[in-house]
């Protein structure tokens, strides 16, 4: 029941791959698996049916031209992947800049979708590229939405046009209009207009949204939608399309474990591209939306491209270059490098999020969920309690040195032993990888210190009790 779309897909395809030769009935059962997976992931039934009909036909057409079962499975996999990418929008589209600045971007969406945070993220994203955005506070509805935008604007260093206090006071249409005039007079080249959340069924508020649109004539209206949304995605996106219209979609809260069924429904029903992905509460946790990456994520290939990019960002160029040079020159990978990597990794933030992007992570889901982030902190403490000599050459670590390190880091001697063992294994692996070549764009040894941990028994929690309070009471009563 809780299986994610990803592990469903992986399951369906690994059973196909194990077949010697694929028959039409194998294709049918794969289609049924995929249908079920898509429904569990909130893809609208009509979209699912079309999708299935499409891949069934394409797979049947391709079948006779392929020799072995493995080839056939791969070809079918490719068909599914390509169809997903096609629906998700083909090539990602960028914001169209106005010929005469400012470029006006208007945000619209349901309550709680994440518009205000997104406004800040967009402002930062474009300011970082040398633009001069202005934020306009037209959500005068929700208590303290204006204050929220002001705080957000301040933290990304972007001015906020907020002439009205909000909390039910002021006219959002006038604020938006005045905001554009203000931006023109002060030569801002971009305006981002935050608006109140509204329901598709609320005619008055939909009318207000179209009034704002008519007053500011935006270059882009972005429909902001929570990635966890269910079947209502279809009704709501249609209501916004009819009520205000929109040019692109932004998916928020993609750092959760919802697998993007809504993305598929919305893209396929509205034919509007998904343009951005919002992936966290912090204002830099935001990116352009890549249909291929989303398709890979759905298919359980893992989002390797994003992972590599984040890794690059986190490993400052110096560290990276130093490690690479070291690596190329064949020097040994030391505990110091190990520590630098750990530090870079904790900079990269949420470990389980990163691991979720790795290929095959769908199948490691349980381990990932139980991944202990404190582990990095503890390991760091141990390495930091070592002398430089010890870090460079762990072979000198005799019993008394280990005891001292344990004391210094507040860990047990067995923890120190454990780390040294893991490091030695990682070092060995590094040597092997060096001989066998590295994937491009990945800093050497990326993630390796953590990987052995995944195979170790991580289930430190007590045997999980039933989620059902009644059942649990029974269990506990025994």
């Amino acid at each position: 029941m809780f299986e994610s779309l990803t592990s469903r897909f992986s399951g369906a395809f690994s059973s196909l791959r194990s077949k010697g030769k694929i028959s039409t009935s194998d294709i049918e059962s794969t289609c049924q698996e995929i249908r079920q997976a898509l429904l569990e992931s909130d893809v609208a039934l009509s979209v699912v049916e079309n999708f299935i009909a499409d891949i069934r036909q394409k797979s049947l057409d391709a079948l006779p031209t392929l020799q072995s079962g493995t080839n056939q499975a791969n070809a079918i996999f490719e068909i599914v992947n390509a169809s997903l990418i096609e629906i998700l929008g083909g090539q990602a589209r960028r914001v169209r800049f106005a010929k005469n600045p400012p470029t006006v971007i208007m945000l619209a969406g349901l309550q709680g979708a994440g518009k205000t945070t997104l406004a800040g993220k967009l402002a930062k994203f474009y300011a970082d590229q040398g633009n001069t955005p202005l934020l306009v506070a037209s959500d005068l509805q929700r208590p303290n939405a204006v204050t929220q935008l002001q705080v957000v604007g301040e933290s990304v260093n972007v001015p906020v046009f907020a002439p009205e206090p909000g909390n039910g006071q002021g006219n959002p249409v006038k604020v938006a209009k005045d905001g554009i005039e203000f931006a023109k007079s002060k030569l801002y080249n971009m305006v981002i207009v935050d608006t109140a959340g509204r329901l598709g069924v609320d005619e008055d508020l939909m009318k207000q949204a179209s009034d704002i649109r008519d007053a500011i004539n935006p270059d882009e209206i972005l429909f902001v939608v929570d990635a966890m949304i269910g079947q209502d995605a279809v009704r709501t996106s249609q209501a916004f399309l009819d009520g205000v219209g929109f040019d692109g979609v932004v998916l928020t809260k993609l750092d959760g474990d919802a697998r993007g069924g809504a993305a598929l429904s919305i893209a396929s029903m509205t034919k509007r591209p998904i343009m951005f992905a919002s992936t966290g509460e912090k204002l830099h946790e935001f990116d352009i939306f890549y249909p291929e990456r989303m398709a890979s994520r759905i298919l359980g290939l893992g989002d390797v491209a994003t992972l590599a990019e984040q890794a690059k960002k986190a490993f400052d160029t110096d560290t990276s270059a130093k490690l690479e040079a070291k690596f190329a020159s064949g020097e040994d990978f030391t505990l110091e490098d190990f520590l630098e990597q750990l530090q870079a990794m904790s900079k990269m933030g949420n470990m389980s999020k990163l691991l979720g992007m790795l290929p095959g992570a769908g199948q490691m889901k349980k381990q990932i969920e139980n991944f202990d982030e404190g582990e990095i902190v503890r390991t760091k403490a141990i390495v930091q309690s070592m002398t430089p000599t010890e870090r460079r050459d762990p072979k000198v670590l005799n019993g008394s040195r280990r005891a001292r390190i344990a004391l210094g880091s507040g860990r047990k001697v067995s923890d120190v032993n454990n780390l040294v063992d893991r490091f030695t294994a990682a070092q060995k692996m590094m040597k092997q990888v060096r001989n066998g070549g590295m994937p491009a764009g990945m800093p050497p040894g990326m993630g390796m210190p953590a990987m052995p941990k995944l195979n170790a028994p991580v289930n430190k929690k007590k045997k999980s009790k039933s989620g059902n309070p009644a059942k649990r009471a029974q269990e506990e009563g025994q």
Partner: protein
Amino acid sequence: MGLFSKFIAKIKGTNDFSPADWADLEQELLSSDVGPRLTQEFLEAAKKVKSENAEEALVEIMTKNLSSNSHEPILGEATTTIMVVGVNGTGKTTSVAKLASYYKRSGKSVVLAAGDTFRAAAVDQLKTWGDRIGVAVVSGKENGDPASVAFDGAKSAQDSKSDIFIIDTAGRLHNKSDLMAELSKVKRVVEKVSPINEVLLVIDATTGQNGLQQAKIFTESVEVTGIVLTKLDGSAKGGVALAIEAELGIPIKWVGTGESEGDFAPFEAQSYIKGLLA
């Protein structure tokens, strides 16, 4: 006439369905977010229904999925302590305000704690509500420790012998283990002052099957005792809450139907189920 009523009319009349009728019904059920499993179960049971009492029989099939646990809000002996949790943007702060207003109107004294110290202006948001409704809000520094704000609130509620104490918390995605650990800490720290009677998980009616995962993991961390189902004033029917009832046994206790403090009521099974089938 809703598709469901048409369906019932048909049962009463011919009792003879084409595969297309079943497909329509499947579509209707799925689109309410009850999920593929409950949909299949319902269809199978519905195929056996005959008789005059078709409508009652079908409502009955759905109602069987409700948790056997009580859907009544829990009230404590002394100060009833309620903690409100959920993912980002579901309507936690608004629901805290609505609960406060509900209890205030029934003559009870209420204290709130602004436990969302993370999101920009979240504390101000709750204070604005506090002023509107006329209840005290205990708050600390933004970006401060939510557990200590909740602790101070609990003390203050106890000292003033308030009837109801409600803690707002920051939104968090259930897959972030550090944030879930923070939430359990808030609960533990408050329990040093007074037992927590109710942990309410706020689920947005537009949420899809991910709602199950939310309920499961929040319950693992803080033992959720009830659901607040918000935004039922929209086109979404909130069917995932039924899946949560069926799968995890957590009862829906309150429903939110708008942005004002009065748009709120205790859960009512019949109207919820009929809403799903409408």
